[in-house]
């Protein structure tokens, strides 16, 4: 890759992250825009690599959009690509939220604003309920008792104990590894999933 190409790539990485983060609302929405940009428009990453990277994004902690920026930036242009991609991704939300927070703290004492914010809670509940159902359908489609055990077990852990989520995370990861190990033995090393 020539120096000029490299600079162009770095600029594209920063600019794409910046614009996507400015317009898309959640991690998954950002991920899908980045996917089309880098696999279809520029063809810097193959579809197969992209599928793997999306899986990796989901097992890495923190915001999905940041994980995607780090990994896609690295695949396209190395460490500097990673850095610029992350920078592009964080600048818009920080700037916007700083302004929103200043505005919020000034207007929240207002009676009408307080009522309006309270009314919006109804919408928040509906939106989260919709998310819960689509996640549940996603899990139900795997037809795996193991996943129901993780789901119900995690819920009971969260409601009934005061233990740290960290412990839950370790238990779930350990369960996933044990499950993989058992399946490997059963299928004689062939790859299969839950």
């Amino acid at each position, binding site marked *: 890759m020539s120096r000029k190409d490299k600079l162009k790539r770095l600029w594209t990485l920063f600019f794409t992250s910046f614009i996507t983060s400015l317009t898309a609302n959640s991690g998954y929405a950002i991920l899908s825009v980045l996917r089309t940009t880098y696999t279809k428009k520029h063809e810097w990453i193959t579809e197969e690599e992209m599928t793997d990277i999306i899986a990796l994004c989901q097992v890495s902690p923190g915001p999905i959009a940041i994980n995607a920026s780090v990994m896609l930036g690295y695949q396209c242009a190395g460490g500097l690509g990673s850095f610029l991609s992350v920078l592009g991704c964080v600048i818009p939300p920080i700037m916007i939220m700083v302004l929103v927070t200043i505005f919020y703290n000034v207007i929240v004492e207002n009676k009408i604003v307080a009522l309006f914010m309270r009314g919006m809670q109804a919408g928040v509940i509906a939106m989260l309920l*919709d998310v819960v159902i689509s996640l549940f359908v996603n899990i139900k489609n795997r037809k795996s008792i193991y996943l129901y055990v993780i789901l119900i077990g995690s819920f009971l852990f969260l409601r009934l104990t005061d233990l740290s989520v960290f412990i839950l995370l370790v238990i779930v990861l350990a369960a996933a590894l044990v499950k993989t190990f058992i399946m490997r033995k059963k299928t004689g090393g062939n790859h299969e999933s839950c």
Partner: protein
Amino acid sequence: MNLAEIFLVFLKIGCLAIGGAYASISIIENEVVHVSKWMSYEDFGNLLAIDELTPGPIMINCATFIGMTMSGFPGALAASIGCIVPACIVSTILILIYRKYRKLTVLDNIVFSLKAMALAMIISTLVNIIFRALFPGGTIALSNFDYLIAILAVASFVIISKIKVNPVFVMLGCGTIYTLFHLFILK
């Protein structure tokens, strides 16, 4: 508020939040509302509504908002950087391993196990949010029940899930109806 303290709390949130934005909401609720008590439930609920109305990753939006409220722009930066540091480190390690080995056989089970855990987390947070929204102030009694929120929530759910209207408009609609109702009818 001490910047280092804000940074560390969000560093912890950044480490624990695995499984997407909605799992991170649950972690932030726990750390910021229950453990550190930096925020009331009412403000946390408002923050979720604001997040839905503004672009960008939900976790960074939350971090900036909370950091900014606690100690201005430096606080906003401390919180946002704190919550992305673990993501950057782990992602870099994962992509380097991936470039070397290119085999992801273990990953599928981990992804779905984490999804199941994230679902449990978001259900748990949703239960808290529903109680706080239906019973303002926290006392669970019939006299304290907010019927209007209950009706609006059910109607919104039908509109979002069946008619697939953008949740942003539904939320703004809920705010408008609730405000008008209180100003003109429930006086």
